[in-house]
């Protein structure tokens, strides 16, 4: 059989012609990646420049910011009366987050175990979309679910012990929000556990329960922990639900029936009120944003470290 014409000609495209456009493409792709760095730089630059307006003020001291137990930036018209102690906002945030985690973590983890270890393909095929739909429910909707359904139910059950706006109903709604996330990330981690480990466990006579709890979960622990951390920072950063349902009064208490303004809730209120742009009270929102950013940053960092340190086991 004779060589086809295309090969007889041996007219191959000059290989250097594409090099320029190739380089151009690589550069533009690199610029895309650079943009993500620029976003971080932008966030940090913004937070620093804008929060100097707060920290420079004579009414504010760093130690006061970190230790004072009152935060009245929205409540005080005059600067002299304003108190800037981040603790009440932190306490609000952590109350809501704690409740959310108490719901999302166990439920999410057990659902994940169910999905990855027990559920048949048919159940998976509708349970997973269900979870995805919950994950896709806008947070505004969940916020109203919190004040229209959860909060009244709580009040009814507890005979009015809960205030209209309270940490618990916001926490529950945030928990619902985080549940699918915990679930699908943990499930991914558990599915990444090689089949061979499960076979090893069954081969030694483990029951399905023992296999999943004693072998699969510990083996997927790094992934599960980073799922928890992600859910945690999502809960800390959640805004609309807490703005709607957690209340607008910063309180320093452990009582879950009370209202709890969170850091994000405060930022939204401050923005919405546009309380005197340029005042120290206004700039305090950036100080809160810095705190928020630092917390979530530490969370992701922890998650990354855990993932990198413990994940390599199966390669």
């Amino acid at each position, binding site marked *: 059989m004779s060589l086809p014409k295309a090969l007889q000609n041996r007219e191959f495209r000059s290989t250097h012609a594409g090099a320029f456009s*190739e380089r151009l493409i*690589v550069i533009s*792709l*690199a610029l*895309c*990646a650079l*943009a*993500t760095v620029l976003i*971080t730089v932008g*966030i940090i630059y*913004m*937070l620093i420049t804008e929060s100097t307006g707060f920290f420079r003020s004579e009414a504010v001291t760093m130690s006061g910011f970190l230790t004072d137990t009152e935060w009245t930036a929205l409540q005080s018209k005059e600067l002299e009366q304003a108190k800037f102690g981040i603790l009440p906002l932190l306490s609000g945030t952590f109350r809501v987050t704690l409740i959310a985690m108490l719901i999302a973590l166990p439920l999410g983890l*057990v*659902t994940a175990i*169910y999905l990855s270890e*027990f559920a048949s393909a048919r159940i998976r095929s509708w*349970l997973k*979309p*269900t*979870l*995805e*739909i919950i994950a*896709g*429910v*806008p*947070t*505004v*909707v969940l916020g*109203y*679910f919190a004040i*229209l*359904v959860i909060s009244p139910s709580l009040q009814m059950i507890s005979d009015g012990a809960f205030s209209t706006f309270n940490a618990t109903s916001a926490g529950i709604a945030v928990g619902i929000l985080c549940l*699918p996330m915990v*679930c699908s990330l943990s499930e991914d981690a558990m599915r990444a556990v090689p089949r061979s480990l499960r076979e090893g466990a069954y081969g030694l006579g483990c*029951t*399905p*329960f*023992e296999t999943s709890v004693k072998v699969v979960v510990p083996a997927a622990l790094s992934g599960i922990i980073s799922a928890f951390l*992600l859910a945690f*920072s999502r809960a*800390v*950063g*959640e*805004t*609309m639900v807490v703005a*709607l349902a957690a209340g607008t009064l910063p309180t320093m208490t452990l009582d879950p029936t009370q209202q709890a303004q969170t850091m994000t809730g405060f*930022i*939204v209120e401050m923005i*919405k009120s546009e309380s005197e742009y340029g005042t120290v009270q206004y700039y305090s*929102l*950036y100080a809160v944003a810095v705190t*928020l*950013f630092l917390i*979530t*940053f530490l*969370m*992701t*960092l922890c*998650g*990354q470290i855990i993932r990198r340190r413990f994940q390599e086991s199966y390669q």
Partner: protein
Amino acid sequence: MSTLPGAIVNQDEQYLADNARRRKQFSIWFYFLCVAIALISVVILVVLMISIWSQGQSRLTTDLLTRSHSELEIERSGMWPAIMGSLFVCGTCALVALPLGVGTAVFLEEFKPTHKVLRWIHGFVQLNIANLAGVPSIVYGLLGLTVFVYMFNVFGQIRVNESAGLEIMGYKHFYQVLTLEPGHVVFAPQTDPTVRQTTFDEPFQAVDPDGNPIEISIWTPGTPKPTDPEIRRRTVRSGAIGGTITERNWYYFRLPFDKSFLSGGLTLALVILPIIIIAAQESLRGVPSSLREASMGLGATTWQTVRDVSLPAALPGIMTGSILAMGRAIGEAAPILVVMGAAVAKSSGPQHLMDDAVTMPVLIFNWAGRQQDEFKELSAAAIIVLLVVLLLLNSTAIYIRQKVQKAQS
């Protein structure tokens, strides 16, 4: 050494059997616990859906889809401008975030550097993206406010009667002058853009709203006033003052963006960018490296490999991830509130790039907070509409994924 250890020799058969039974029983209980807990999420969804449906189903009318928010005729309020607004905001968001996100993912996954310093940078960028994914959306809102809305005040502020920022294209300035016919105006072309008002004492050349030139005459108070509406339309009072108005084409563009839908869309793009990058990276990682090797082995360059092999193979995954990210964008309210404000009384979708807009979540946020029962029901109805949109998006994503899974199995 070969004698069996005590533990094996002294096995109590009864204990072994009981133990096995107990463990099996426990495993069964655990299974039912799992089922019960997995059902909780379903129950939550059902309760959510039922409570929303029962509230909103009576308001699912064509009015809802075609009319705009109304304070005076609450029962006939609608969400058309919000639908359009969400469309424009999310469209902008998609146009920006998709190429940027996929580009970044391709760069990070397919152009892995071999040099040590570059590898370090690569790892840094990767960590940075993980961090961005964890940044609360409200912080992105604040960033959008400084960067897009005010642009660090580099271009000044938008002020009525004084400054419209740095206008770049798509605009024409006129003086708008009232004629003697009530409600009727004529437009005088503005020659000097810095002059915001001018006084008309002499007849002048103007244009009507369709852009046709017309001669305008002057009526001096004290002289008889023309009665023919035709003539009154072409007559202005001596000393009438015209104020600048701007005719904006759809591509009207100025800096800063102010509280326009463009700012909102760009801010949302920041929010979902890390999500898209991570999803795209994941699905590029899922492309078997054997395909890349095959392409490289045939002499394709890295980019040719990406373009012809990796990207097409990863496309379904990228699409799924992007659709889910868009779902997030559509439902996102916090950054929009920060960037575009909470006002909802708008009667149409955005008319030009710098126009403001209402989005569905913000409208829901507003309506649900109102006291009138009509608004409460309307908000539930609007939630239904929003959820239907999201459901459509999600099922597209799920459909794509399942099709791909089938094709791969």
